[in-house]
């Protein structure tokens, strides 16, 4: 096989494969579609090599001891010297000429042995275990196990239902001591609180004395736990996982745009988990983002459109809103929480009515250097690229307040933003006509003359642009409440009413328009956008002083750092 540049050839089960030097054998075998089973190995953590499940046979081309010449078989092929004992696939790095056997009798027997050892002290009560259905031990026991037990002794007894922190509950009897969670806390979260006590088979996972697993990434330990030991206190025993339908989504907390997968059954969301994207969030996400699904069914959810606080249909509310917007003296408060499509629609409205000003409200928080960036809006860059705003937003709507006081603005159309929280006084808000499109109750919604109940991110599809200028899509997980209307549909209808021309009211049809405008979006459609997102050309915004600091896969510009 011809050697490509920077690649070396290894041989897996008789098949030659070119891989980068240093790639481990678990990953290399995966390229060939072969699974080397493993528990402790995780692609984003250091190698521990302790579960011994990935044992394979290992060989290197032999060299004559005396002459140093390569040894050859009778047919002229290199003679492979196989090691007497098996070696771990995860800790074996690609080297020129390396041979491994992943399905030889010795490798299979090693796996069967490890599976037997893992099961002897593990509770065999899968039917009542919360991990059942997504348990690596369960899967590998079925594919690599003996199928019967030779163990007649008493099993070890360890603590059940230990509270490790506010969000994580531990069942020590189910722990296979793979140390993934410990390595995650040490290496990714930077919060070393987990460790083992006791020795041998009595080893027990626990928190350091006086500490608890409370960091904002603690639930990642639950995701990477291959068994039912670490469980999410919020999710455990709420739903059998095989009933859950999974939908790809994006974490709306920050400008990082963490890729997520949302699990729901029959219109109810049960949990949010991270989705692997090596360019954005690896396999991690913050705990806070997993709570966002609770907004869907929260008590303060707006489920009914109103005009002058009287319930009405969405159709009437939209018509009334269109009427108000035609009166002149309109300012628009958009949002970094809106999707790119909604921002395009809002931009069309703003242009059509000649708005007296378009504002966003900036949200800034503390940068944790991992996945929580300073900018807590998921889509400020979307607003910039849609042309809705021309500069980075302020945290306060002071300019708008002045325009209200001067009488220049008499109507405010706010999408998702609470004007009071944005810095306007109740007095100022009282002076103007308010049209509000939002999902949750706040002062603005209670004062609104026209209220259009919209949808949360989990109830609609769309795209957002993260801090890397990566366009990423999210999809509808559950339907919205009956009285609410999809934001894009509402905006598109308003625009159609105002302009007298039709405006695309679905994400797919709007993208046909966005993608043909000769802009940075050219050639992209919602359908074709990959789950890993697409990097856009953000060079037009290079001179902006974005506030994000260093996070997992984002290096800020030098000027931005200087401002920090």
């Amino acid at each position, binding site marked *: 096989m011809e050697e490509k540049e920077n690649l070396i050839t290894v041989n897996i089960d008789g098949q030659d494969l070119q891989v980068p030097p240093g790639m481990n054998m678990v990953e290399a075998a995966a390229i060939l579609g072969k699974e080397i089973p493993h528990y402790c190995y995780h692609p984003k953590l250091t190698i521990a090599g302790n579960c011994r499940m990935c044992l394979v046979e290992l060989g290197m081309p032999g060299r004559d001891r005396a002459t140093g010449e390569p040894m050859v078989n009778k047919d002229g092929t290199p003679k492979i010297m196989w090691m007497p004992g098996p070696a771990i696939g995860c800790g074996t790095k690609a080297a020129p000429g390396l041979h491994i056997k992943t399905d030889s009798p010795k490798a299979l027997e090693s796996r069967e042995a490890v599976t037997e050892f893992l099961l002897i*002290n593990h509770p065999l009560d899968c039917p009542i275990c919360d991990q059942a259905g997504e348990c690596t031990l369960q899967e590998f026991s079925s594919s690599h196990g003996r199928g019967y037990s030779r163990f007649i002794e008493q099993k070890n007894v360890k603590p059940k239902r230990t509270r490790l922190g506010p969000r994580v509950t531990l069942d020590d009897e189910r722990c296979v*001591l793979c140390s993934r969670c410990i390595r995650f806390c040490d290496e990714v979260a930077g919060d070393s609180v987990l460790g083992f006590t006791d020795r041998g088979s009595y080893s027990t996972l626990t928190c350091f004395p006086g500490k608890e697993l409370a960091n904002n990434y603690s639930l990642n330990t639950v995701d990477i736990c291959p068994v039912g030991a670490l469980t999410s206190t919020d999710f455990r025993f709420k739903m059998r996982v095989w009933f859950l339908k999974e939908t790809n989504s994006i974490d709306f907390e920050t400008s990082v745009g963490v890729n997520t997968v949302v699990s729901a059954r029959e219109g109810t969301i049960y949990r949010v988990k991270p989705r692997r994207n090596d360019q954005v969030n690896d396999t991690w996400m913050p705990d806070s983002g997993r709570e966002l699904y609770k907004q869907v069914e929260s008590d303060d959810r707006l489920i009914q459109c109103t005009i002058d606080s009287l319930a009405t249909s969405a159709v009437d509310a939209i018509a009334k809103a269109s009427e108000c917007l035609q009166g002149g003296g309109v300012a628009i408060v958009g949002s970094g929480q809106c999707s790119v499509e909604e921002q395009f629609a809002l931009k069309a409205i703003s242009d059509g009515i000649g708005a007296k000003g378009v504002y966003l409200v900036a949200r800034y928080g503390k940068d944790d250097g991992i996945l929580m960036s300073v900018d807590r809006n998921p889509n400020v860059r979307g607003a910039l690229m849609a042309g809705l705003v021309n500069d980075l937003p302020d945290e306060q709507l002071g300019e708008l307040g002045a325009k209200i006081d001067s009488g220049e603005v008499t109507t405010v159309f706010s999408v998702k933003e609470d004007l009071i929280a944005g810095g306007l006084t109740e007095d100022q808000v009282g002076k103007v006509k308010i049209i509000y499109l939002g999902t949750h109750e706040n002062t603005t919604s209670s004062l609104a003359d026209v209220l259009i109940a919209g949808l949360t991110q989990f109830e609609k599809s769309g795209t957002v642009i993260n801090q890397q200028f990566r366009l990423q899509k999210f999809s509808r997980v559950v339907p919205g409440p009956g009285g609410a209307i999809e934001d894009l549909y509402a905006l598109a209808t308003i625009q159609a009413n105002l302009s007298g021309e039709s405006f695309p009211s679905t994400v797919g049809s709007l993208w046909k328009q966005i993608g043909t405008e000769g802009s940075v979006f050219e050639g992209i459609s919602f359908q074709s956008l990959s789950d890993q997102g697409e990097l856009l050309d953000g060079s037009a915004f290079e001179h902006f002083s974005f506030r994000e600091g260093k996070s997992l896969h984002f290096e800020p510009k030098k000027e931005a750092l200087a401002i920090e």
Partner: protein
Amino acid sequence: MSVHPKEQRIILKYADEPGYTPDIDCYMKNGGYEMLKKAVGMEKQAICDEVKNSQLRGRGGAGFPAGVKWSFVDRKSGKPVYMVCNCDESEPGTFKDRQIVHKDPHQLIEGIIISSFATDCAKAFIYIREEMPKGAEILNQAIKEAKEKNFVGDDILGSGYSCDIVVHRGAAAYICGEETGLIESLEGKRANPRIKPPYFPAVLGLYMCPTIVNNVETLCNVLHILRMGADEFAKIGRPNNTGTRIWCVSGGVKRPGYYEVAGITLGELVYDICGGPKDGRTIKAIIPGGSSMKILKSGERFTGKDRDGNGYDWGIEDIPLDYDGIAAAGSMSGSGGMMVLDDSVEIPVALANLMAFYSHESCGQCTPCREGSLWLKKITTRMVHGQARPDDVDLMKSVADQIEGRTICAFGFAVAWPVQSYLAKFEDEFREFAERHSRMGGDRTAAKELACNH
């Protein structure tokens, strides 16, 4: 205490002499630190060459040539090199390092400093097991004395070479004797042995710096190699098995104890020096090098061909008492802890005791060792408590086979070898024992008393 004529005391030359004390004055009166004075005037490489040429093999267990180990040290990284003296003498049946530390600590310190000087180590550590509190006190006192005389510390004897020695006490774990586990423990972590590759101590050892880990007895030998010269040292014992070894004999012999010998047979040690079995007893089996080594059975014949192609046919007492001799008999000389089992010992009970030890000492990192060792303990304990089953013997063998060679460190071998060898050589006794102790109403008190205590 009289020294047996067959003993050849070099390291323990003064240790048991009447009036010999562990203080520095006594040590210097007997020629102590003269070799250090000589060493600091030598080329470092010359000392390393002497050690290499002496064919000195490590006295800790694996028997790896010390000079070769020193030459593996990564000098290209630019990181400091550390010297670690492994004084975690925790292999059951071994008590030789304790004699050196307690009775002649300055010999060890001189050996460490010479070795550190030769390998250009930035700092030396003595990792001493928790169960030697007195030893740690003695070593600290000795280091203090040596510092006052400028044998340890800054600019040793005006040579420009500085090296401090730090005594670090373990916390009573067998696994800390494994060199990478020891390094983890020395760093203040749980003593989980590291995976190799990539964490070879010579490259990524203590604090991810190149590190040399040597046993107490090995480091003391460096001193004597320098004194005698490599060629003279290599004349002691057989080629490739040079120098003396301190054997710790325990169990069913008349005179158990530690004996420094070279070039004799196992029979000479057990019968001539230790006086043979106690009156009325016969020797049933011998564990040659610490409890993890494979057992040698009385009456067995050990045949084969040595390196030069000469055939041999030994009884247990004919086995040459050195690395290659015991290896030729299918076991290992290990740490030099020889346990003699006489006919009063029931092998299944001995195995149950051993399994209780190993299951307690497994660090718990690798699945096969962690789960397998406790499983074996549970089976053997059940056997001696009179609830053996007919298929236990086959099951134990299968479990041991599933552990051997599949773990990060050699502990997996240490668990598996006793089980495999005891079962292979005493299978009939196991089956008979299982049969006898599974009969209802049989007297099981004796067996219970002998069994492991937990």
